[in-house]
């Protein structure tokens, strides 16, 4: 077993009086792809957002339990949330490029962190666009607006923007649900390449996608993590009947 990036211990989350996550305990291994599946409202996206404290932004949220990143609790009082989100980046369902040039989108994070040198920025932008397979498609129009790119290109740009601040973990919340099959395949290939360097946690409505790209899969239901294990095992021989019912489509 490789080292664990995250260790989550008896994590509970409440939206006001609603008990959204019920005692989640699990470990996320480093440089692997971990996928979470489950019906809408099961808590998988909420859980994803606990990993970089995105839920802090929602009023009335209360979190109990521990989320250890490299052994340190990210909910400890002295934690710098901005620094945390630099280490644990996020990509959302709808591509959300900033309304600025392709170059500036990728350079945004590094500039925020104080990188001013033009050559350094050019190098970072080039490397990140290369890493997401976008460089050859956009190299001649780096100054063009990012909003002119296709949906799939925009999503890869958002991943490049995320890579530009050198994160360790990338959280992806249904990153391909707004994309066509070809753009989806490109993102999936990209995820498989990125796991050599990054830990990737993905929430997906497509369990086929979870099957194709993840090393470990977790099944959430009603705020519980029903089952978590190697993807091959979960999809061929799940331990819990509820998992079997869900993945075979015999659900409610």
């Amino acid at each position: 077993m490789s080292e664990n990036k995250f260790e989550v211990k008896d994590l509970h989350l409440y939206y006001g009086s609603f008990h959204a996550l019920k005692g989640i305990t699990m470990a996320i291994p480093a440089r692997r792809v971990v996928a979470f599946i489950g019906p809408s409202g099961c808590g998988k996206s909420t859980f994803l957002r606990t990993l970089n404290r995105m839920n802090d932004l929602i009023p009335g949220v209360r979190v109990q339990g521990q989320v250890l990143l490299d052994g340190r609790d990210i909910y400890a009082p002295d934690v710098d949330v901005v620094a945390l989100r630099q280490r644990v980046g996020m990509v959302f369902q709808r591509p959300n490029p900033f309304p600025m040039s392709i170059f500036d989108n990728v350079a945004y994070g590094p500039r925020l962190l104080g990188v001013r040198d033009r050559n350094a920025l050019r190098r970072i932008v080039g490397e990140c666009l290369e890493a997401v397979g976008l460089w050859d498609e956009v190299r001649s129009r780096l100054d063009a607006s990012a909003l002119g790119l296709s949906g799939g290109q925009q999503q890869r740009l958002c991943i490049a923007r995320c890579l530009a601040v050198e994160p360790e973990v990338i959280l992806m919340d249904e990153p391909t649900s707004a994309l066509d099959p070809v753009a989806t395949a490109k993102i999936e290939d990209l995820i498989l390449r990125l796991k050599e360097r990054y830990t990737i946690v993905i929430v997906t409505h497509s369990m086929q996608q979870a099957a194709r790209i993840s090393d470990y899969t977790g099944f959430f239901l009603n705020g519980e993590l029903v089952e978590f294990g190697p993807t091959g095992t979960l999809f061929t021989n799940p331990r819990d009947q509820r998992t079997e019912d869900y993945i075979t489509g015999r659900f409610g």
Partner: protein
Amino acid sequence: MAVTTRRGFQEQLADLQHEILRMGTLVEETIDKAVRSLRDRNADLARQVIAGDDRIDQLMLEIERQCLELIALQQPLAGDLRVIGTALKIITDLERMADHAINIARTTLRLEGEQLIKPLVDIPRMAELVMAMTRDALQAYVKRDTGLAAGLEGRDDEIDNLYRRVFDELEELMKKDPGNIRQGLQLLLVARDLERVADHVTNLGEWVIYMVTGERRVLND
């Protein structure tokens, strides 16, 4: 422009075909050794063949697991699906071919130290043809060569003719002297095993044709 996506999956498919070839090569060696053990009356070699069967069975189970996992995880379609379906069928044929080779090796042990009732002529000839067919079936699989696969049909007929000849000859010997019956039956079973191996080889050919074209063709009626 052909965009290569799903590289990981394509690599897994290539791995799978590599494993099939590994199993095929092992089975081919097993048949070869089994027949040599009989021809050369080499009991040690026969025992080696019998001991090697576990490895082939293990390999079959491993490939089977790989296939089912690919189906579950990768949702293969069209040509990709045929590659996996073909793999699942081919390993059964290969495994049975090995079982027949084991039978031949067992016969070698049963006849250990006995004087043969006749020199072995047609049985080694059958074995040679079966070996060549096996090699070509594997070659057809690797090269996706449907012509080579289809050519196995006529060669199976040749095996069937040889089998009938061996049958008649042994029947004569047994009629002449009931003392020949025990060995006659053993040798007949060997010929039968070889004939069955050839049938499985034609199945391999059928699966290669299916994998490449999507059409089921009967090579052995």
